[in-house]
């Protein structure tokens, strides 16, 4: 049943959002303005693009690196969480899917910083993972490689965000009408086909939300690049921290923040546009 609204109700609705909106407005947007302002002005208050230029000049590689890392992570994340969610929904073996349903949620409860901390000692060249491989005879101590660096960052992001995105995606899959899947099997479609042709097209919006929220989260995490990342290039958050801590240079840091926000907003916009298009079609 669709809702009906009178002007009176609309006013009510705005009033209901007001506290939350005010909270974000006063305690985030307003201070954010200073940051944005600082990104595009000199100390004297004149408008300038110098900071943005400098950010690009020094950190374009890192910006690219960040985007690539985030996109790779998000891609892996999508594949993995779709796989897990699909197994949970489609697997004919109920006990397996139950186990899986319990398993994937664990990382949800482990904060980012703890994750980074765990991964740092886990992924190192002589970390527990490689040690385990060596002990089990899969590798010789000489063959071990350190996953610290870009691969470690990706692994950590995926490890941590997996629970969140899988939760959303399997939720969307669970909400699909069971009979739609049955109808497809009934016509002879294999489980793979069903996944790609019946399920995925219908959960695109949720997949979008999960990915956007994950990207946003990954772009803003500092502890992971600091603890897992090594050398250069590195993530933009590390550059921002460096810019502030080492040079006391807030302008360029904020310029980097602006760039980072634009990337997030760009990706979110990409999602929203798709989403609105679909809405328009219906």
């Amino acid at each position, binding site marked *: 049943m669709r809702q009906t609204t009178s002007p009176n109700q609309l006013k009510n609705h705005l009033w209901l959002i007001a506290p939350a909106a005010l909270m974000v407005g006063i305690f985030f947007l307003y201070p954010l303005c200073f940051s944005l302002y600082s990104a595009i002005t000199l100390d004297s208050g004149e408008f300038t693009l110098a900071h943005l230029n400098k950010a690009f000049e020094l950190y374009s590689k890192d910006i690219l690196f960040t985007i690539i890392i985030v996109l790779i992570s998000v891609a892996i994340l999508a594949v993995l969480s779709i796989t897990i969610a699909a197994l949970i929904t489609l697997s004919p073996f109920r006990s397996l899917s139950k186990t899986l349903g319990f398993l994937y949620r664990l990382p949800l409860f482990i904060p980012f910083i703890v994750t980074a901390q765990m991964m740092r000692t886990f992924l190192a060249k002589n970390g527990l993972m490689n040690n385990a491989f060596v002990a089990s005879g899969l590798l010789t101590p000489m063959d071990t490689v350190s996953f610290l660096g870009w691969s470690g960052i990706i692994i950590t992001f995926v490890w941590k965000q997996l629970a969140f995105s899988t939760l959303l995606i399997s939720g969307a899959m669970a909400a699909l*009408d069971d*009979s*739609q899947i*049955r*109808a*497809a*099997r*009934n*016509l*002879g*479609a*294999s489980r793979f*086909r069903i996944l790609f*042709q*019946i399920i995925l*097209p*219908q959960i695109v919006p949720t997949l979008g939300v999960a990915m956007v929220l994950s990207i946003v989260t990954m772009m803003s995490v500092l502890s992971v690049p600091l603890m897992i990342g090594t050398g250069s290039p590195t993530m933009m958050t590390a550059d921002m921290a460096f810019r502030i801590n080492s040079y006391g240079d807030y302008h360029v840091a904020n310029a980097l923040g602006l760039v980072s926000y634009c990337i997030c907003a760009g990706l979110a916009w990409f999602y929203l546009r798709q989403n609105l298009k679909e809405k328009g*079609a*219906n």
Partner: protein
Amino acid sequence: MAHLHIKNLQAGYGKKLILDNINLTVEQGEMIALLGPSGCGKTTLLNALCGFVPVRHGEIFAGNRAVSQLPAEKRNITMVFQSYALWPHMTVAQNIGYGLKVQKAKRADIDARVAELLRIVKLDGLEHEKVTALSGGQRQRVALARALAIRPDVLVLDEPLSNLDAKVRLSVRHEIKALQKQLGFTSLIVTHDQEEALVMADRIAVLNQGKIEQIGTPEEIYHHPSTPFVADFMGAENHIEWPIHDDAFSLNLSNHDDQLDIYFRSESAVLSAQPKSESTDFNAGLIISGHVEQSVFFGNNYQISVRCGKHTIQADHNQNLPEHTPVTLRIPIDALHVFAKKEKHSDHQKTNIVSAKSMRMNHVC
């Protein structure tokens, strides 16, 4: 197209056994209606056929293939789902062509077949609509076309009409029947509406609590129910238990010392406004006198509730009668469904009082 043969089928959920020892053969090109009250296991049976509920015991043959251990996608028994289960992200044509696409048919073949089916179900011109833009009746036809597109061995339909409104239901009912005749597919249709079953099916199987109570042609089921349940379910809403120690009732059967369950339809009760005369009527098996309690306009006639002692009997009559009018009801002997009183719950025996006609009926298979 092939015949469908179900042998000693058992199925259920978890520990619960829902279907027990189902035996049913659907001949090639035949349409059988599964009729039964809500929760009796109709959907479960279809699900077992299609592979969505595991078969515990017994076997299912579609054509010559034993399919009960095959996964759902290998069975070639196609279902039309009660809720249609159309895929909202696809167009009408995509929905219909999906099964062929799965079979890796050629693009051109798919298009041709889709066009053919669209013509058959009278949806030409709608192929590029999103299914969400269709009305209920149109969706129903898309669901049907989708199921037919792959020329299934067997088509099963789960209450295909229950979501439609009265007028649309009539027309879709006719369409399905016409298509079935035209294309000759073997099919099993589930319904809880007796009229639907009577009109559409070649034979009817009445299901109750996971067991088949009776199988037969519509006429057999209607006129010669083999159990009280079937009688009641097929609309014999008047039920009296004999003997009744009340002068208002007189039963005119060869032997009536038995404990009997008697069922009859309101339409077979002949109502006359003059009080009971002692002349034993030509073939009135049961004569009841009482007075009008309520009279309700029913379209082409009135349904009169007649109060007879503790019983209220429904009878059809062609005119309205004021309350309290004394009336007599005469029910012809062959309109009475008489059963030996059920002593054990599961075992009804139709008495041999009622003419030999009833002997004709026996469970097929």
